[in-house]
C-alpha cells in the first residue's frame, strides 16, 4: 500500500492494510537494527524535523535514531527553544519549517488535535508523536508489532489495557489500532481514570483488575499521569497500587503465556510492581527497540515518492 506523502496523525480510521504495511516494513527494518552497521542510505538528502513541545526521552530519541539510521538529516527543535516561545504562532512556525525545505515534521504537543491542525497548514507529511490526551500513533504501531512478534498474530487476542486510560494517548491509539487488527480490547481501571466516552469505543470496560485480566493474552500497563491530573482522581497512591497495581499475583488471572507491556516511563511500585518488568514475559525493552524499527518504517513509507 502506498503511503507516500500522507500524514500519520492517529490510528483511528487508519486502514488495516496501511497498518499491516507499516508493521511488515518495520519487521524488515528490525533486521537492519541487528547489524553491526545500523545505517542504510535510503533517505539520504531528506530532512526530518522533530518539534517537541513536551518532554520526551524515548519517543524523541527513537525518531531521531530512526531518521539517522535511514541517513536522513534530523533536526531537533524543542518548544522552549523555538520562536513559539517569543510569541510566534504555531502556523507561522510550521510554515517556516516548510520553507526551510523540511521533508517531514514530527510533532509532540500537549494540545489534543494540534497535529491535525498543523497538517492542514503544510504540504509535507506531519507525524503525530503524541498530542495531548488524543493519540500517539507510532506507539500504537510499535505495540502492535511487539504483540505480533510475541504471539504471531493479533486477531482474536484479548488485550487488557490497565490503569490511567483517561489521560493516555497511548491507550487511545492502541484501542483503535488493535481493534482494526482484530483484537478484543478491554480497559481496566478505576472509573475516574476511564474515558467518559468509553461506551463509544470498541472496548469492554472493567473496574475490577482480576476480572479485567482474566484470560488476557496481553497485559498493557499504563503510567499514572499525575502531571495531567488537576485534582485527585483516586484516594492515595497506596490504594491505587493495591487495587490496580499489576503484580505477579494479579497476573495469575491472565493466561500463563500472557505478555506484559508498558509504554514507559514506568513508576515501579505504583502502577506496576517492582519485579514484574523483569519477568521473562515482560517485553518492555522489546517495545523500545521495535519503536525504532516502526519509526524507520513510517519515515520510509511516508517519504517515499509516488510509484
Amino acid at each position, binding site marked *: 500500500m502506498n503511503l507516500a506523502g500522507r500524514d500519520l496523525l492517529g490510528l483511528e480510521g487508519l486502514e488495516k492494510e496501511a497498518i499491516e504495511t507499516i508493521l511488515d516494513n518495520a519487521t*524488515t527494518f528490525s533486521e537492519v537494527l541487528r*547489524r*553491526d*552497521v545500523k545505517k542504510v*542510505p*535510503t533517505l539520504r538528502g531528506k530532512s526530518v524535523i522533530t518539534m517537541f513541545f513536551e518532554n520526551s526521552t524515548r519517543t524523541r530519541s527513537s525518531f531521531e535514531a530512526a531518521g539517522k539510521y*535511514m541517513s536522513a538529516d534530523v533536526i531537533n527543535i524543542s518548544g522552549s527553544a523555538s520562536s513559539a516561545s517569543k510569541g510566534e504562532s504555531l502556523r507561522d512556525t510550521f510554515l517556516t519549517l516548510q520553507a526551510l525545505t523540511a521533508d517531514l515534521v514530527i510533532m509532540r504537543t500537549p494540545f489534543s488535535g494540534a497535529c491535525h491542525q498543523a497538517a492542514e497548514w503544510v504540504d509535507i507529511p506531519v507525524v503525530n508523536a503524541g498530542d495531548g490526551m488524543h493519540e500517539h500513533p507510532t506507539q500504537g504501531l510499535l505495540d502492535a508489532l511487539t504483540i505480533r512478534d510475541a504471539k504471531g498474530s493479533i486477531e482474536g487476542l484479548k488485550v487488557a489495557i490497565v490503569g490511567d486510560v483517561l489521560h493516555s494517548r497511548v491507550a487511545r491509539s492502541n484501542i483503535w489500532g488493535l481493534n482494526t487488527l482484530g483484537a478484543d480490547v478491554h480497559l481496566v481501571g478505576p472509573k475516574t481514570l476511564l474515558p467518559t466516552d468509553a461506551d463509544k469505543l470498541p472496548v469492554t470496560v472493567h473496574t475490577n483488575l482480576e476480572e479485567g485480566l482474566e484470560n488476557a493474552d496481553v497485559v498493557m500497563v499504563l503510567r499514572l499521569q499525575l502531571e495531567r491530573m488537576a485534582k485527585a482522581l483516586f484516594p492515595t497512591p497506596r490504594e491505587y497500587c493495591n487495587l490496580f497495581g499489576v503484580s505477579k499475583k494479579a497476573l495469575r488471572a491472565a493466561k500463563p503465556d500472557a505478555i506484559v507491556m508498558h509504554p514507559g516511563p514506568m513508576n515501579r511500585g505504583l502502577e506496576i510492581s517492582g519485579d514484574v518488568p523483569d519477568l521473562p514475559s515482560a517485553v518492555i525493552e522489546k517495545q523500545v527497540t521495535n519503536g525504532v524499527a516502526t519509526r524507520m518504517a513510517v519515515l520510509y513509507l511516508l517519504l*517515499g*515518492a509516488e*510509484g
Partner: protein
Amino acid sequence: MTETQVMDAGDVRRALTRIAHEIVERNKGAAGIALVGVVRRGEPLAARLAGLIERIEGHSVACGGLDIALYRDDYAVRRHEARASSISFDITGKTVILVDDVLFTGRSVRSAIDALMDFGRPAAVQLAVLIDRGHRELPIRADFVGKNLPTQRTERINVKLAELDGEDAVAIAKGDEK
C-alpha cells in the same frame, strides 16, 4: 506481448553447473568463499551454486541473501518493497560471490556492493549472473555469466526459477520498458 523462451530447465542447470566449476577454478577451491544472492531471484541461484560447489569440493560454503531495496539510487522515483537480508556469517576477509539473475544497467550491482560493505569488509567481491543482457550505465562487469543475451532496451528478460515460480526458464519479451 510476445515472449520467446531462450533457456529451458536443462539450459539453466548446465549454465549454473559451469559457473560453479568456474568459481572453484578461479578461486583455486572453495575455501574462504561465500555466496550472497541478491533478493529475490539471486538468492535461490546462490543456494543452488552453493550446493553444486559443495558437490565439487566436498565441503559446504556459506550462503545468504541480500536485499538491496534500501540501497537503490532510484528511491525517489520508484519505491521498492524492502525485505530482510539473511547473512548469518561474517563476510570480512571472505571472497564473496555476489549472485543475481540478470545483469542490466549495473545499478542493482552497485547497490548490492554498497549493501554488502555494511555487513563487513570482504577480501574480494566477484559477480555471477545467469543472464547478462547489456546496456550498462556503470562500469560493472560480471566475472561469471550463464548466458550473454544481447537485447534491446525495450525488451524484458523474464527469469523463472523453480523455487519461486514452479519452473526454470528464461524468456525474452518484447514490450515497453517498465
